[in-house]
């Protein structure tokens, strides 16, 4: 079977699996990294949202063969390290606002939020209601309002 090499949460990994297997399953079923969740498998619910080279992607829609050795995949497990602490400011904001209910969607929500804040900052502007409306991540527990508050608070502490 073909080998695929890329980086996950700061470490180089090599997996031996068919190239069309989607990254979500490589992470969860082969590497045992279970932070990214399955909610649809078709790039709709965003529960699996992770970062590739710092930008939000949905691993359920990425064949593992698309990754290059220098590509850096960050899952919720590796997010804090990107900010050099035990918790990323966005995770701290999530705690401060007691966002999670069942928690199933929250890894994806946090990863999407961080990417949104970075994107908006790169555009040199502040987060708007329209930006928040544009988040597609499902939360079937309905934590949307606290998510909005937490993102604004987390953004303040991200530099």
């Amino acid at each position, binding site marked *: 079977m073909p080998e695929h090499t890329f980086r996950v949460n700061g470490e180089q990994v090599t997996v031996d699996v068919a190239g069309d297997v989607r990254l979500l399953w490589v992470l969860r079923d082969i590497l045992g990294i279970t932070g990214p969740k399955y909610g649809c498998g078709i790039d*709709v619910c965003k529960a699996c949202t992770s970062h590739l080279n710092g930008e939000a992607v949905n691993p359920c829609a990425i064949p593992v063969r698309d990754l290059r050795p220098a590509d850096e995949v960050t899952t919720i497990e590796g997010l804090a390290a990107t900010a050099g602490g035990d918790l990323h400011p966005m995770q701290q904001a999530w705690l401060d606002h007691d966002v999670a209910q069942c928690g199933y969607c929250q890894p994806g929500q946090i990863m999407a939020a961080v990417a949104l804040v970075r994107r908006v900052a790169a555009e040199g502007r502040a987060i708007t209601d329209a930006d928040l409306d544009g988040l597609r991540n499902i939360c079937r527990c309905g934590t949307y309002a606290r998510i909005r508050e937490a993102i604004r608070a987390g953004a303040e502490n991200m530099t």
Partner: protein
Amino acid sequence: MTAIGRRHFLGYVLAAPTLLTAAELGPVAGPGLPSPEITDLLDLNDLMTAAALPTANLISVEVDGDGTVSFALPRAEVGQGITTSTAMLIAEELAVPLERVRVTLADARPELVFNQLTGGSNTTIATYTPIRVAAAVARLRLLEAAAAELGSAVADLTLKAGVISGPGGDGIDIGALAGKAASARTRRVAVELTARESFTVIGRPHNRIDALDAVTGRKKFAMDLDVPDAKPTMVCRPPTINGEVGSVANLAEVRAMPGVTDVVVISTGVAVRAATFGQCVDAVRALRVSWRPGTAEGKSDESVLRELRAAELPLGIRPPTPVVEGAFTFYFRSNSALEPNCAIADVRTGRAEIWSAMKSPIVAQQAIAAKLGLPPGRVTVHVTEGGGSFGRKLFFDAALEAAEVSQRVGKPVKLMWHRADDSRQGRTHPMAISRVRVSYVGDTVLSYKQRHTSVSTDLGHGLGEIITAMAARLPVGDIGFSQTFFQLSQTMPYEFGISSRLLSETDKGFNTGSMRNVYSPDVTCARELIVDQLAARMGKDPRRFRHDFLRDDRSRAVLAKVAEAGEWGRPMPEGTAQGIAFHSEYKAVSAALVEIDCRPETVDRPIRDGVTGPRVTKAVFAVDVGLAVNPRGLEAQMMGGVMDGIALALTSSLHLRDGHFLEASWDNYFYTRQWNTPPDLRIIVMPSTSDRPGGAGELGVAASMAAVACAYGRATGTMPSSFPINHGTLSFTPKPTIPPIPPSPADGLDRARRTKET
């Protein structure tokens, strides 16, 4: 639960090497005399707690040498926050910091019989006293042990933050006393519970104890567990509801696909086990199966509507007085949580082990044992943390299936439903029509009649046993279980004269369940829309009318609160309006005020693959649950209820066509999304009006749905009569039913780069 006074109870200290104390689960709640309004005397929760009495059993609190306190909760945590509120009860009575309390979920405990069911928003109501009694016994034993150690009287000692100090100021940690406070034999102990005025933990807002795990990805759901060799497994399902496998044309071919280890025909389809779920998806899609018909063959929204109309109970002769009448249709809704149905099963010769989020684990254990041909004692059922439930996890469809597959292939399996499976073959909130007639003269309402006709709700998860066992003793006559459930869960909060509400059910061909708040959202929505009509007829403002007809001060208080906080009656631009509604259940009262924007520029704002529609721009929700154990958790539950209410009123439904549901994705089934969320949302937890908590997990849905419907009616000038209001427009292209699940997309990188969307 033995009560010997208002705050005095008997608990136990159990024989164990470390301090282990206990209390009986199942406090007394006595039914009163029969009355036309039986919910005044007895509601579903009384019934559930009363049903538990004869089989009441012990729940126990353990103090360990490291100073931690452990408790295994015989309920399911599915996001509603009961592990946090339970830890708070223990922290309160035992005077230990919350961080020292470890609450886990108990495996199935058959000796609890009916008392291990998470439903009817009953958890806190049923466990509030027993958990505190067990903790209070522990506190007493620790104080006694410390007294012996320090050579002083118990009365001179204080227990604070997990440390007991004497008059001299020297402190001993409870961990150091755990062994000494242990008992060599089991005996009863009388304790006094902390008075409400002295609470320092209960009633104060606390963050969830599992929040850190949730935000770091460490929280483990069933599919995250590492059970050796439990390989990914999925099932190729029929194109119509509950169809059956005829034959499979290419079993050998699919068995040879990359990663695939097993392919077997089971009772619900064709199961595939593989190295990754991705390979399961491919294998499921490759299977060529000929299917036999299901249980709803050829049915559609229109045909079910005809069935419902035919099953309606008559409203009787129209009285000579003026009447307000209305009939409302509620389409099928999906009961899916975000975590799909899933379970791990390891079935070996003579034994089985199951992991899944289950709200009725005892029933599950018995059903799985029967399916596998094992004695129940040989089946271990572990209750895992659940990724949402909303009633869904009262059933254990995935666990049963996983057990069947594991037995067939002789290997452990980690079984998951695809989202499309969950949407098309999963449990639903049944389609229903609710017909209401109110007669009135002048300012007096003479009678209120509601006939609710629904596709059968499957209540066969064990709650049924409680109720049917109790039904004969109830003052509601000889009626079946669902009618009893209906009667007990529906209250008439208004002084509307002679009131009758009857349920008629038809068609058991659908996979249904007790979706969050069960009958109440639909029944309440219909009632509150009629209340608005009635108010208009009497020339009264909708809030004023409700105020005048509500039956008690507690109800009027929540109504007044939302009216004030939400500025009821403020001038609103054309095409926008406020709506207000009330609902009481689970020993709690609630009111919602919403503002909706139905102007074309809002309704038609562009969102890719989504339904925009009218936007609820503001929602204010006031709740009085009696005693709120954790106001922050309660607030979260109400927020979720508001989001559900918005979805039920405006956007979320399943379309039935040709014996199957068209929806197969979250971009087909429009649960509330960020673009539907009210930018202004306020939850108001009323000051505690009682010594006892009411239920909260489901309460928020009904008043929210009703308020949105009322607001929509007022904004558009037309009372809506079919829900959700966008059901008539199919807002997506249905996915094929063969193969039953969509392909895994491969354009994730391009898409992320192209749209930079999140």
